[in-house]
């Protein structure tokens, strides 16, 4: 385009602007070139660079393929390699270690690793990190960093064909290249639950390219070249030809009976995975985690139902219906490889679950019941507990087509999750009901023991292991060089879904009915508030013991404050009122749980406060009795009131009696009728309370010598009126009191003559013999 080779060659012209414009353009273009391609763009030999890169790519897959020793390479492999490189690069970029998520790691590390050999077939991401590191070590030439977020579900290696003389331990390691994370097991391409293909050669040529998050996929390492998927439902099994459920149990190529020795030889030395055993067997034998595998084999091969028999040479995996070779269901102990069976027997005669986490009281109760049940069964069976048990066990296994749906690893995984949930930092808080219930039971039994002369049971305390709460700050996954953070929500980092805003209704447009309803609601609300305070206050004793010396005064102050709040809530203190009305309290007392709450609060109140409550109750007793007709909860108040009475001075007792009986102020003019008193007397609680008050008054009177002599005693005056009223009341419909104090007869004898005393006794049924 340019006629001249360089700018310098350009002759100057009159058209300076044009040339300068061109020159500027040149400069700009040069600048653009430099910016885009960099200064090294011209220098570098792209061919060399490409070769270098190509070498690098070949190295990695070759290194990995050596490990598998698999000679076959489909076109899938190449594709897999490309993906694998990408995945590797991705994994390098990830900063955080996703597997350090406590939700997984803790679960995994608590259980013993079933297979301790690195590079074994059974390692999975559920193994502890130590196993993973061990696996990574020998396999890798270079250190791989952390686990990537994404895990590609890649094709399984093609099936091996008949295994004839192949020892499992000689089998080469599975192709690690199928997963981006070196050291993690290959993941099956076929999703769980896929119906199996034909028995001949299942082809796993599909490739699933969608990435899956780490947590979700349980691993499915290839245990054996199962023509049946490991997760076939029983229905699918039935439809598969040659299934033993339909036909004879053993394929004709297999000798029907193998001696235990032969069986042991078949499987001997083989790396038996626990998954081949009947999981149901394992489920019933807790703690029997895969250790004496060899011992298990002969027993298993006796054809217990529900097992996947291991694919020894010539076998194909199948579910065994009761094979003809099985010894008949024994009524006695079956013959067999004696020592092995005996081992098994000694380890798990009866399904005894782990009861160590239970409260000792609970455990005791459970074992008692177990003993009872066992005795019952023993009596029923007659053939011996073990025999009967075993035969039912056998039957159960034989008919169980649902066995082996889950691998042992997966079952362990699920139980790990469940066990994790049992961990608790504060069992008292988390498991409040359970702890307190058994504490109460123990207290009861202890109280009974104190009364009786029985032997003392060991008073074991339940000590639960307390896990320190670790603060795991969740750091979201970040990629290098990216802008911003991924918004990924996981179980440890939940995302707020809904923004709920609480709006309170205005009170203006409510009708009268609504207001009445709201009043009850308000009362309920106040009751619940007070209940929370009450629970806190009841808890203070425990907290006091647990706290340090310096904190205790603060705790006490808090407690006092809460008690005052409770009292205010009860009485409904309104500003500007000297004496609060009874209304608020009466409203609370109309509700069943309000009454129970008052009964529980009373011991915490001061004497004056409690006396005030008692007076208010007495004043409004007929109304409360009427409201209590359905619930009949008032008697629960009797014992706290009685306790309170013993702290009250005589003056209070006197006025209380007046209130209770609604006695007229002046002794002279009796009122025509006293419905208040009748109502009180006709109610169990009312009558009991009255009797208790009278009794207390009598105690005070008799204990105080000064007042005995003085006749013009307010108590005496009141008593005269009281007895008169009592005599007037008709006997019909009088309630039966909860308890009758013993000193009432002597009380009444002071104030009435013999005849009237008898009358009173009869009426109130004061004497035990009359009842």
């Amino acid at each position, binding site marked *: 385009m340019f006629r001249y080779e360089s700018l310098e060659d350009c002759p100057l012209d009159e058209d300076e602007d044009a040339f300068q414009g061109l020159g500027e353009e040149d400069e700009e273009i040069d600048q653009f070139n430099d910016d885009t391609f960099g200064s090294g763009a011209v220098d570098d030999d792209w061919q060399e660079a490409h070769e270098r890169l190509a070498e690098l790519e070949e190295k990695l897959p070759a290194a990995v393929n050596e490990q598998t020793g698999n000679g076959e390479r489909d076109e899938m492999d190449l594709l897999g390699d490309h993906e694998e490189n990408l995945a590797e690069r991705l994994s390098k970029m990830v900063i955080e270690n996703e597997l350090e998520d406590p939700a997984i790691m803790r679960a995994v590390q608590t259980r013993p690793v079933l297979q301790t050999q690195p590079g074994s077939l059974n390692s999975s991401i559920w193994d502890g990190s130590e196993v993973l590191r061990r696996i990574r070590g020998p396999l890798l030439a270079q250190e791989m960093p952390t686990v990537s977020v994404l895990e590609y579900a890649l094709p399984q290696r093609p099936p091996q064909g008949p295994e004839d003389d192949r020892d499992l331990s000689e089998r080469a390691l599975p192709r690690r290249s199928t997963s981006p994370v070196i050291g993690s097991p290959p993941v099956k391409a076929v999703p769980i639950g896929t119906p199996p293909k034909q028995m001949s050669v299942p082809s796993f040529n599909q490739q699933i390219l969608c990435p899956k998050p780490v947590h979700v996929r349980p691993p499915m390492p290839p245990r054996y070249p199962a023509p049946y998927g490991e997760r076939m439902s029983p229905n699918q099994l039935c439809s598969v030809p040659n299934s033993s459920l339909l036909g004879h149990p053993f394929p004709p190529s297999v000798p029907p009976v193998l001696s235990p020795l032969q069986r042991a030889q078949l499987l001997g030395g083989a790396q038996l995975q626990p998954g081949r055993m009947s999981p149901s067997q394992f489920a019933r034998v807790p703690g029997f985690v895969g250790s004496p595998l060899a011992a298990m084999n002969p027993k298993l091969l006796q054809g217990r139902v529900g097992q996947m028999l291991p694919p020894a040479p010539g076998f194909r995996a199948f579910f065994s219906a009761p094979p003809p070779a099985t010894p008949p269901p024994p009524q006695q102990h079956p013959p067999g490889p004696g020592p092995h069976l005996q081992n098994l027997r000694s380890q798990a005669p009866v399904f005894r679950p782990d009861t160590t986490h239970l409260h000792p009281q609970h455990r005791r109760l459970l074992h008692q019941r177990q003993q009872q049940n066992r005795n019952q069964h023993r009596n029923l069976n007659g053939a011996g507990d073990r025999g009967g048990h075993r035969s039912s066990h056998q039957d159960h296994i034989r008919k169980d087509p649902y066995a082996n749906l889950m691998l042992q690893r997966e079952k362990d995984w699920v139980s790990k999750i469940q066990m994790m949930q049992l961990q608790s930092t504060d069992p008292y*808080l988390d498991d409040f*009901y359970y702890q307190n219930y058994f504490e109460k039971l123990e207290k009861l039994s202890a109280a009974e023991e104190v009364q009786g002369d029985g032997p003392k049971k060991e008073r074991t305390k339940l000590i639960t292991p307390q896990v320190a709460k670790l603060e795991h700050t969740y750091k979201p996954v970040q990629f290098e060089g990216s802008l911003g953070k991924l918004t990924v929500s996981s179980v440890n980092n939940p995302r707020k879904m809904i923004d709920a805003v609480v709006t309170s209704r205005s009170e203006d447009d409510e009708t009268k009915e609504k207001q009445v309803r709201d009043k009850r609601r308000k009362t309920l609300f106040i009751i619940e508030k007070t209940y929370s305070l009450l629970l806190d206050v009841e808890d203070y004793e425990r907290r006091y013991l647990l706290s340090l010396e310096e904190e205790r005064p603060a705790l006490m102050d808090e407690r006092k404050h809460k008690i005052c709040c409770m009292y205010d809530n009860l009485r409904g203190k309104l500003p500007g009122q000297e004496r609060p009305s009874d209304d608020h309290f009466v409203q609370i007392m109309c509700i069943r749980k309000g009454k129970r709450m008052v009964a529980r609060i009373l011991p915490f109140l001061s004497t004056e406060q409690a006396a005030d409550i008692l007076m208010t109750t007495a004043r409004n007793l007929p109304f409360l009795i009427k409201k209590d007709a359905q619930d009949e909860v008032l008697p629960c108040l009797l014992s706290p009131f009685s306790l309170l009475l013993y702290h009250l001075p005589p003056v209070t007792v006197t006025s209380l009696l007046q209130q209770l009986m609604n006695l007229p102020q002046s002794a002279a003019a009796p009122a025509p009728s006293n419905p208040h008193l009748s109502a009180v007397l006709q109610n169990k609680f009312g009558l009991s309370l009255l009797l208790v008050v009278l009794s207390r008054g009598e105690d005070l009177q008799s204990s105080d010598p000064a007042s005995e002599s003085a006749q013009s005693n307010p108590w005496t005056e009141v008593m005269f009126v009281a007895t008169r009223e009592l005599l007037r009341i008709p006997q019909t419909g009088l309630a039966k009191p909860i308890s009758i104090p013993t000193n009432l007869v002597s009380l009444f004898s002071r104030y009435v003559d013999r005849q009237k005393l008898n009358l009173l006794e009869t009426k109130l049924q004061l004497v035990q013999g009359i009842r």
Partner: protein
Amino acid sequence: MGLVMPLSVCTFSGFFKSFTSPIHVLIPCSEVTSVICGTLHSVDQYLNIKLTDISVTDPEKYPHMLSVKNCFIRGSVVRYVQLPADEVDTQLLQDAARKEALQQKQ
């Protein structure tokens, strides 16, 4: 049988743990309801129930249950659970529920 269940999930999990004697579980089937009585083996957070040593209250009506000794019942189909009254402390249960409500509020 020892009960295994998560602690912090629900008050009722701890509540169910404390039972030792048989309980009744009333279950509605599609057409009929049946009462299954058994010893509580375990409960989970969905209140799925596993019972051992079960017996059906009306064996003539449900003869297929005669051979069944243990069962797992999905929590969603249970209509009622009848518990032995002397093993239940309602006051304590209320307190536990209140405490849990307090905890959740905090």
